[in-house]
């Protein structure tokens, strides 16, 4: 927007004084044009319904404002997709967030996604957003959070975690592992978690789809990889 001519002293001073009066407090957005369109009576994310005191009265608005708008999903429900290609992800995840569940997932759980380049590529996109900053580009546990934030380094995919089976990888992404890694189930759906699991395996293989030496059977690694 163009600036008023510098010699417009008097009206501009008046305008500036007005602006100062309404725009000075960073906690207040300033004058609203059509408040009823900004403060909608319909439910919107992160804005509680009916929060406009003009519409519902201050008392009711205050009560509604104190209700959290972000909520947990109803207990016992699972996300469901009618897309047949995603049928494998519709089921309840049966392993509990315990040491026993972790071990069982490692023995029994198998990825529904194939180990192919497109899946790995998709996994890499997710890995770069959700894992890279701790695990590092090659999974060596040297991400920026570890380096700059003095964060407990995750073990390397190339040494300690080299033989971790896919079930354990998936379980760890879902529920987290130890204190340093939280669960990522709220950020990634099952398909995304499986895709990123494939990419982690790709990194375990040193950047190859298949390992030079065959992966040991899952049961022999049950105790070797924590």
């Amino acid at each position, binding site marked *: *927007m*163009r*600036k*008023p*001519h*510098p010699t*417009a002293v*008097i*009206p*501009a*001073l008046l*305008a*500036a004084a*007005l*602006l100062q009066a309404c*725009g*000075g407090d*960073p*906690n*207040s*957005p*300033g*004058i609203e*044009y*059509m408040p009823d*369109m*900004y403060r909608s009576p*319909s439910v919107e*994310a*992160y*804005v509680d319904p009916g929060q406009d005191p003009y519409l519902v009265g201050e008392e009711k608005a205050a009560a509604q404002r104190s209700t959290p708008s*972000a909520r947990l999903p109803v207990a016992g429900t699972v996300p469901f997709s009618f897309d047949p290609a995603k049928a494998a992800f519709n089921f309840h995840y049966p392993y509990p967030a315990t*040491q026993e569940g972790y071990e069982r997932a490692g023995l029994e759980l198998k990825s529904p996604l194939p180990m192919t380049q497109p899946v790995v590529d998709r996994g890499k996109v997710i890995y*770069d*957003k*959700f894992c*890279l*900053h701790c695990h590092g580009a090659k999974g060596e546990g040297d991400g*920026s*959070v570890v380096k*700059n*934030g003095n*964060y*407990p*380094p*995750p*073990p390397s995919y190339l040494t*300690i975690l080299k033989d971790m089976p896919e079930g354990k990888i998936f379980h760890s992404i879902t529920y*987290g592992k*130890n*204190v*340093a890694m*939280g*669960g990522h189930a*709220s*950020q*990634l759906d099952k398909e995304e978690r499986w895709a990123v699991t494939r990419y982690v395996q790709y990194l375990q293989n040193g950047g190859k789809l298949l390992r030079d030496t065959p992966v040991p059977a899952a049961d022999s690694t049950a*105790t*070797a990889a*924590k």
Partner: protein
Amino acid sequence: MPRQSRFSFRSPGLFHALFVLALTLTAAPSLAQPADAALYATGEKVFKGNCASCHKPDKDMTGPALKGARARWEGKGDIYAWVRNSTDVIKSGNPYANELFAKWNKALMTPMAVSNEEIDAVLYYADNYAPAAAKAPAAGTPAPAGEPQEVSFWPWVLVIGLLLLVVALSLGGVRKSLNNAVREAEGKGPLPDRTAWQGFKNWVWHNKVFASVLGLLLLTWGITAAWDWALTIGVYGGDTVAHYKPEQPIRFDHTLHAGKADKGNLAINCQYCHSGAEKSKHAGIPSANVCMNCHQAVTESQRNPWSNAEIKKIHEATGWDGMAYTGTPKPIQWVKVHNLPDLAFFSHEQHVAVGKLECQECHGPIDEQMDQAEQWAPLTMGWCIQCHKDKEVKMAGNGYYDEIMARLEKDEKLGHRELKQYLEDEKITVKELGGWECAKCHY
């Protein structure tokens, strides 16, 4: 522009330099050097490579603090065997091992392929552990200085105007007394006193042309200024108004979390927390469990003077007290910054997943400058459609536009002509693919 003192204590690097200097001076003598520095260094290296994921030298984390571990194991079993393969020691029925196993939630420690010497070194390191001098924020990453201030010229105009007024008034006074002196010499009485308003009217009467031109100019300027001001109503970002920058219940520092790694920041991807941006209308404010993905382990920070208090607020919000879950979470009531009126539809998914825009293109240098989030863009319709007019659609490898392109290419008459029109400026813009249709955003 946010109103901040230009001489804020947060801005200059000098204070950091002094702070770092003071820290090094005070901290250095108090750091007791371990007797065997080489062993300490070996231990530190082995510790960081193998143990640091789960153990801290001086604090319990996933596993117990290693300080004093040797003393705790004294006479209770073979600590070397315990470190190398804890499962076997537990199975062998060692009472202390089983007690520890039960105490630490039956979590097994990864067997470690380390030698006795390395274990000795690690335990020596842990027993003599002295935290490195508090890491002052790296010199390259001063807390973001307040954005460069626009130098306002209005105060100067006011000062100069006042000065001119004073000069004019005193000149007027001088002239009047001179006139009176002349009249006195001519034997006439002094001029009658006139109010300023009468003087003004008199002046206007004698300078009609000049006064009308000046009046017309003033009127025009007044209307322009009022128009410009009116255009800022309901605008909370952009170049013309102070950005809306509300105080949040937790002072989250975007520059630390999302800033570039080479500047000593954590460089966490925006979408790690705002994971809805790619698949939903809303980018989303992360629920506090996402904070706790890291902040269960990060309980303190030296980054900002307020960091520790703010981290404590996350723990309170999620119902954690140190390492224990209290079971009473307290929702955080964030203040919404960007608010579009209901009459306009906007979807993050369309702009992030299809348009492949960077967050910063609309939200500004949030990862470099904003230790408190603010509305950077004006979010006016003019701003929206300007971008839709200029922006080239990223077609390459973008499945979203395959069909429209196929249709254009198939229709040899109309489609080809349209495509040629689009490509006159050598790019296909959002507008050309319907980005200026009213019903795209208003329905």
